[in-house]
């Protein structure tokens, strides 16, 4: 089993005729992902990479029964693409696009409140993969392998680093979710941890966090209430210098949360082992 995504998920690619969209669609197909179609306004009716292309997501959903989507469109168009997918009834929306203005994402998040079934991952994220079954996004399958470890991360390349080390040590993964590093994003650590908790195939958990925000602290609060998962956390940026602050507004709302120290303490308090380097993660998990 897995969370969010498996072989039966019917996946759409928004921006399938673009260079990035096309390249990663092929990678997704290679793993066996059930890609049922793509969208590219003006190119509806064409066939690309063996699947039908539609002008809009609503048309694609009607024709293919798609229930998930990967978004590979440029930043100026990505916010609309996310909302289009939600309005068309897609329940898993994965937005890979980086560089989306924050105010656009704040409006998108508000829009999504009207679609409680829709789960957004990202933006600015590597997506997710259920090894051996399916992926949406850009996580390379060759560094993953099926198994019992759930992995959730805010960083792309550190995810690859840890997945690769886990696979090399013979510890496969149930699902790997890259939630993205933007300040305003879709699923949080806490949301993903909740899903892993309910997945019987997941017995171990790795969390890769970053300084800033308090998503890690919130996930730690959840784990502190009791968890069946053996968990290890790593926080990157522990030596990063404090940002050069301009106003007081940020400090008024966040206080001292958001530092590497605050996050590591929250995890330790929850009984989660904290690794000091990514190299230590595998050893601490066994």
């Amino acid at each position, binding site marked *: 089993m897995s969370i969010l995504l498996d072989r039966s998920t019917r996946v759409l690619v928004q921006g399938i005729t673009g260079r990035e969209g096309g390249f990663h669609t092929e*990678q997704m197909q290679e793993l066996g992902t059930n890609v049922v179609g793509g969208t590219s306004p003006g190119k509806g009716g064409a066939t690309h990479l063996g699947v039908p292309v539609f002008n809009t997501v609503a048309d694609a959903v009607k024709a293919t029964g798609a229930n998930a989507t990967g978004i590979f469109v440029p930043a*100026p168009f990505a916010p609309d693409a996310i909302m289009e997918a939600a309005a068309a009834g897609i329940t898993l929306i994965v937005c890979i696009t980086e*560089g*989306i*203005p*924050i*105010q656009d*994402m*704040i*409006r998108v*998040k*508000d*829009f999504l409140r009207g679609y409680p079934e829709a789960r957004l991952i990202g933006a600015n994220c590597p997506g997710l993969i259920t090894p051996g079954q399916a992926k949406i996004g*850009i*996580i*390379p399958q*060759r*560094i993953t392998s099926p198994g019992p470890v759930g992995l959730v*991360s*805010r*960083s*792309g*390349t*550190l*995810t*690859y*680093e840890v997945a*690769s080390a886990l696979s090399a040590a013979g510890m496969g993964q149930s699902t790997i979710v890259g939630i993205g*590093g933007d*300040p*305003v*994003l879709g699923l949080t650590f806490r949301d993903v941890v909740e899903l892993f908790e309910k997945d019987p195939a997941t017995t171990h958990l790795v969390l*890769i966090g*970053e*300084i*800033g*925000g*308090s998503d890690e602290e*919130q996930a730690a609060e959840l784990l502190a209430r009791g968890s069946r998962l053996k968990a290890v956390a790593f926080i*990157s*940026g*522990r*030596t*990063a*210098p404090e940002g*050069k*602050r*301009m*106003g*007081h*507004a*940020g*400090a*008024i*709302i*966040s*206080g001292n949360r958001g530092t590497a120290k605050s996050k590591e303490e929250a995890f330790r308090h929850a009984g989660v082992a904290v690794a*000091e*380097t990514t*190299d230590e993660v595998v050893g601490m998990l066994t």
Partner: protein
Amino acid sequence: MKLLEYQAKEVLASLGIAIPPGKVAPTPDEAAEAFETLGPIAVKAQVPVGGRGKAGGIKLARSAEEARKAAEQIIGMDIKGFKVPLVYCEAALDIAREIYLGFTVDRDARANILMLSGKGGIEIEQVAEESPGAIARLYPNPWRGPLDFELTQLVYDAGLGDLARPLVALIKKLYRAIPEYDALTAEINPLVVTANGDVVAGDAKLEIDDNAAWRHKDLEAKYGSVIEGDPYEVEAKKRSLTYVSLDGDIGIIGNGAGLCMGTLDLVQRAGGKPANFCDIGGGAKAEVVENALAVILMNPRVKGVVINVFGGITRGDEVAKGVVTARDNLKMKLPLVVRMSGTREEEGRKILRENGIEPGASGWEAAKKIVELTSVGAPVTGTATTGAA
């Protein structure tokens, strides 16, 4: 982009918010001239960072001579790493009350938060800690913005009901910085009520979202070049690199922000001091690696460089060839350690070794190696691990 005070005030004025009369003075003479037209003035350092008052960057001048002297002292001063390029001379205000008004992105709520307090001034963070109730808050709907009755409630919650009418109008104007300029933070602290009862912006802070720069090319063109930041950061920006200067001596290049930040942590853990953060993004193309190395080598403090590339789909042999070419083009003689993995990583490592660059087996190994090679007494050239061409 963080605007300077005078720039932020120009933007606020364009939104219809009252600002005190003021003049930008790049030289002491111009500060003296400003006194002639404005009378008693505050001479204020223009830097995109807080705490300039406590750093001695704001002085009151009661004569042209005092204005000149103040400007002489302040221009060129270093405030938290920023060299002061010019001062802003502003008519001194007859302050009756100081209010705090600001908005920012509340990451946890995934929303903008508007904040208002009758206890404005430089101690506002202490107010937030000791009596959070003294700061009224509102999360406006991001599609339609705050409504009048919501703002009226905010003003009364802040205990400023006697100023309800002017404040509601003013907050609506300030909020327009979000839809019109993609502002992430806008702050007026203090918002001054003068002895005559006028409400004017005593200070202004404004940060515009860099991700939205394509929507605001006019702002970038008008203000982008004034801020004298770190010279390496300026050069890196010209070369489209994500680069932050730090105060150590080991150059760091990584692909992906997380991996790059992780590499900083590793180098620090190994006893070294990173000179920078430089994320070259996915792909690690030869040209990008060369740009990154060129910027890092501009810094005379740098004693060695570590490159950490995790290639998922990126091909290791191409990364290796790119690194070798970049090093040769730049005639780099300092120690260079490269950690890379990805498809064809074995071929890549072979290319590195053949060219006298020792590949680090992991990020941690690479960090230890570069620290060892750059520490005092280490052989700088002649070993298999150095990048001596």
